[in-house]
């Protein structure tokens, strides 16, 4: 019997789990996929928003501003890359310039600091590759970037290091409540018991709430397609560039990632049946819009394109509340943008505010906010690296040449919380296969390491779980 079950291993579930692991509680994360971070949190812009976007008084505004202030500290503890690169909302017309004034006022009302309207000249000095048509911008110095899957995986890993339990391939399909505790059943028949359930199931949070007996949540899905450029383009832009929002929507972003790639996107396509296919129209639209934002975009350095799904609710604000229907169920749903930024603040509120009202929260005296140093091999000096290589020569063998990832780091990803069991899992934890050759050289080696660490034949190794086997038998 667990004290708290968290359903959904995205950034919200991960943040809640890690916040819970600070207390003396038995906690468990239920994830329906073979790995954590497989939904919205694995494919989004990675922007840590300043907080001028959401209307005053909304949960979005409140959690965004709080989360923005918390993000740097959390990333530092977990060794997750974070950069306060600043955001620019770029105006292309007088009308846009007017909108910037109201955005600035809204941001100030929300409590966002360091907001400034800058001229076209100042703008060009900051971002020389910006379009000549730009006439000014709102500069939010507190805007930042983070790697969303690195953050999510690290939060879960740290929570597990502090005692949290993870069940993968656990697709919750039904729940019943008896004697003040929930029994949640998975599609494969496994069962788990918990006193409190936090529903962080993203796209599926409406469905999950429903089988608990709460039909109050209506979720829609929006697809976003992206194009990623080689980190050889580092410095093409250094800040996150937004179009000024109009009635027609927000347009695409052009921004650097913490790993020095350049990211273009997303589209915003309403989906009846969610999928993560890229489309020719979508990618062309991204290219067209990005070209309006910047000149001379080095598209020849494209290394991949992808799509992510974001969930939104019919309330058009975050839902972070005790279920109005089911005692002991807490819903975190409709967490669209700025959900990533808001995650730490949402988690704090859910744990201290909502769970604290239901369960005693006693400090976990052994809680360690830091991750094992093995994760930070890349950041060490050559001398420090050589000391590790002397003890473990696998750290001297580079497997992914594009991102310079060693065998030791990949083994670490396959053996440390939360363990990678798939090629994509290794990729999201280490960046092996994320570079310009997209795994062309390293994939066979990564697959062999996964097979060895998990005691599997190579033919059983998958790209991302289920039936995504890399190979279809042996050659003659």
């Amino acid at each position, binding site marked *: 019997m667990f004290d708290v079950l968290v359903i959904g291993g995205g950034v919200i579930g991960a943040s809640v789990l890690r916040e819970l692991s600070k207390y003396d509680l038995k906690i468990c994360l239920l994830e329906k996929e073979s790995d954590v971070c497989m939904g919205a949190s694995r494919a989004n812009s990675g922007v840590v928003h300043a907080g001028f976007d959401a209307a005053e008084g909304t949960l979005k505004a409140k959690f965004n501003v709080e989360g923005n202030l918390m993000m740097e500290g959390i990333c530092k503890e977990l060794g997750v890359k974070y950069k306060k690169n600043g955001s620019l909302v770029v105006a292309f017309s007088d009308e846009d310039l007017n909108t910037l004034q109201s955005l600035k006022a809204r941001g100030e009302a929300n409590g966002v600091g360091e907001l400034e309207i800058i001229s076209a000249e100042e703008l060009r000095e900051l971002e020389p590759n910006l379009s000549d048509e730009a006439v000014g911008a709102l500069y939010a110095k507190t805007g930042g970037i983070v790697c969303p899957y690195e953050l999510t995986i690290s939060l879960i890993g740290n929570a597990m290091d502090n005692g949290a339990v993870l069940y993968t391939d656990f697709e919750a399909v039904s729940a019943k409540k008896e004697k003040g505790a929930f029994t949640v059943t998975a599609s494969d028949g496994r069962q788990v018991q918990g006193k409190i359930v936090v529903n962080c199931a993203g796209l599926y949070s409406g469905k999950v709430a429903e089988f608990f007996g709460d039909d109050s949540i209506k979720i829609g899905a929006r697809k976003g397609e992206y*194009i*990623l450029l080689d980190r*050889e383009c580092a410095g093409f832009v250094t800040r996150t560039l937004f179009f000024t929002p109009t009635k027609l929507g927000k347009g695409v972003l052009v921004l650097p990632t913490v790993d020095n790639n350049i990211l273009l996107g997303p589209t915003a396509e309403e989906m009846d049946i969610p*999928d*993560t*296919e*890229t*489309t*020719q129209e*979508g*990618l062309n639209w991204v290219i067209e819009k990005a070209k309006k934002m910047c000149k001379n975009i080095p598209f020849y350095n*494209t*290394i*991949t*394109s*992808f799509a992510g799904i974001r969930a939104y609710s019919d309330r058009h604000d975050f839902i972070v509340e005790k279920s109005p229907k089911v005692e002991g169920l807490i819903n975190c749903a409709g967490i669209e943008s700025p959900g990533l930024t808001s995650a730490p603040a949402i988690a704090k509120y859910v744990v201290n505010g909502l769970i604290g009202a239901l369960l005693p929260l006693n400090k976990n005296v052994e809680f360690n906010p830091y991750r094992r140093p093995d994760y930070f091999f890349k950041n060490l000096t*050559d001398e420090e*690296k*050589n000391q590790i*290589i*002397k003890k473990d*020569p*696998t*750290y*001297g*063998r*580079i497997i992914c*040449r*594009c991102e*310079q990832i060693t065998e030791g780091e990949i083994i670490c990803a396959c053996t440390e919380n939360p363990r990678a069991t798939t090629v994509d899992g290794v990729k999201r934890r280490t960046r092996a296969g994320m570079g*310009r*050759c*997209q*795994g*062309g*050289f390293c*994939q*066979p080696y990564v697959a*062999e390491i996964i097979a060895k660490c998990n005691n599997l034949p*190579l*033919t059983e190794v*998958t*790209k*991302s*779980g*289920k*039936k*995504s*086997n*890399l*190979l*279809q*038998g*042996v*050659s*003659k």
Partner: protein
Amino acid sequence: MKHDIVIIGGGPAGLAAAVAAFDGGVKDVVILERGEELGGILNQCIHNGFGLTRFKESLSGPEYAERFIDKVRERGIKYYLETTVISLDKNKTVKAVNPELGFFTIEAKSIILAMGCRERSRGALNVAGTRPAGIYSAGTAQKYVNVKGYMPGKEVVILGSGDIGLIMARRMTLEGAKVHAVCEIMPYSSGLKRNIVQCLDDFGIPLYLNHTITKIEGTDRVTGVTISEVDAQKRPITGTERHFSCDTVLFSVGLIPENELTKSCGITLSPKTRGAVVSQTRETMERGIFACGNVLQVHDLVDFVSEEAEIAGRYSAQYVLNGEGVYDFLDTQAGDNISYVLPQKINKGVDGNVKLFFRVKNTFKNCTIRIKSGNEVILERKKKIAVPGEMETLILTADKVQNLSSPVTVELEV
């Protein structure tokens, strides 16, 4: 650590360069190879056809490599395996890492870049659809089949008619897979004619020219692709879609010289070859740093890689023994219907003939290839056929080189 000549890469280019440098009089030569063995990509090319030009016999890739590895061993040339070069600077300091030594640096008198190339991936093309398992570049599939002994799939569609794609169409067929189609967006194949005949025609595998994959399907594993014909602007033509059920898509859509180290060192690159700008000695625009093989220009035949590497090795040795020579550069340039010319510079300070390598932009029949210096035609050759997939060469004799006074242009007239 100090060595006279450091060669980055132990594939065909690095091996031939090492032997030539040694035979050129420099005994302190060291090869840094990131793989587990010498030979580079040849180790996975178990088909034959290698060495026809150089050895007048048909060898497999590993056999071809072995001839050079033997020479390296006979000479006692030092090599480090599983050793990845991390950085390189203009002072010729090379930083590398391997499991045994950890991170270490070598100060060299001369460096030969021989890192080869990589395959362009699906991602670089923005091919729409899902991202399931079963999408490989042709070389990755070749590694799985020939080295690891596994089948990447059973029902295959190949995009791109580069040589590796053609070879893999045959290889997968021989291994019992069904190759449904090879699609090529261009109106011609970028592969060698002999590979079209021996790998596709002989096995009845259809080649769809002017076609591309417009959608990939499948959630866990690939389940199918849609291909479409393209117009002159390479845009898919609506109504020409054709669907294939398959579990595997192979990409053979071009090779890119792996010049990240070259770039980080600040060596001038050619936007056309995506390799370093060199003179006929294969010296880059940094004195004492040479480049050869596929890191310099993507060759069709390994025989030419060896030939080019020997030039680099020989002149690298001369650089170490004699120091800087005389530098008196003239540019070469690609004229009408020519996509690039290498070397990009002719150094008149160096004696001897200069062999110009170049590629034509399209398929041409009964054409004339001309070399001009300024407006003066200095060499002319008639060709029955010239295709982009086969590199062309012409030799400027030493006397002609000495008389050059204006930039050299190679052009093709139909």
